């Protein structure tokens, strides 16, 4: 093995790994879309994530589906979710739903509950409006 090959081969391998990482990472950097961004999209089958707060009074539970609205910065999108929501799911809490946008509703099959950074022993100290509008 030529002396330079000892350096070139690992260098190419490292660069390759970094490229793969960066390509995959860029999709991880923006974990979810806001309701405004979802509304601006063309309807389609492509999978995406939507996040916002569950609008109070919007939750309708049926046998296998839950219908509700998620809102961020005063823009709401209705969600039809199939499956059992996580145990912390409730009105006012932040959620991330995964599925597709059909132009009118967000059809979801996966739901995660977002927990915010607040740690409060007393419900009175808990600021429910801390994340009603996300920037960026």
């Amino acid at each position, binding site marked *: 093995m030529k002396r330079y090959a000892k350096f070139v081969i690992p260098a190419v391998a490292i660069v390759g790994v970094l490229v793969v990482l960066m390509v995959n*990472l860029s999709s991880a950097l923006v*974990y979810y879309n806001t309701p405004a961004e979802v509304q601006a999209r063309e309807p389609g089958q492509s999978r995406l994530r939507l996040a916002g707060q569950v609008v109070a009074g919007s939750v309708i539970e049926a046998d296998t589906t839950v219908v509700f609205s998620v809102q961020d910065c005063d823009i709401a999108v209705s969600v039809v979710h199939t499956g059992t929501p996580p145990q912390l799911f409730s009105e006012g809490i932040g959620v991330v739903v995964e599925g597709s946008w059909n132009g009118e509703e967000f059809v979801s099959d996966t739901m995660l509950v977002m*927990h915010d950074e607040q*740690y409060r*022993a007393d419900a009175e100290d808990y600021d429910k409006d801390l994340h009603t509008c996300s920037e960026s």
Partner: protein
Amino acid sequence: MTSTQHRTTVWPWIVMAVAGLHTFVASMTVSPDVVQGQLSRIMYVHVPAAWLAYLAFGVTMFASAMYLWKKDFRWDRRALASAEIGVLFTALAIGLGMIWAKPTWGVWWTWDARLTLTSIMFFVYLGYLALRRTTDNLDVRAARSAIFGVLAVVQVPLVHFSVIWWRTLHQPPTLLNPEGPAMDTAMVITLLIAVASFTVIYVAMMFKRIELARLEDEVLVADQTSSGPVAGQAVTAPGLTKGS
């Protein structure tokens, strides 16, 4: 030759046990969070573990830079010890985070920026530890790992600020929040107690690991300088002079 018998220190074990117990009592007596309930107690170990991992990798960077400057193997051993403890604390933070995430988010794991970058940091420092095992030559090993140890630290700010710079499922920092801590004072105090205890545990672990690294290096040097060629003689029975 009984005089070569090494006496190892005991106090780090006692310190670790006391500090660990201290953290446990503190985190079990504070009031739980109103939304998460008892689950919030995980935070008192998860957060210190993550912070101490940052500190440990920072110390590895510093010690690596000092080695490159001074060429003193003591700095090499400090870099190794800190990296190994950092990997342990990273694993602890990830593991506890997963236990918290399942009942909170609904999943054990997801590829958001914080979790992805933390797992990369974990594997990069495992790579650091693996790199140290690629050669028996102490000078080569120390030089290679020192360069790695300096470069790898760029991940620490990336991991920490990922929740501020990008949209993540993981919540932004509570205590180091740019808009001030979003936590009750009693909880802040408990968390600070836990961080202090973890720092003490880190120092005690460093002490033990550096001690062990010095013994390892002594054995390595003794093997390399002892009688005759080493290659091909690996199957020879070891000498029984010790302890006789």
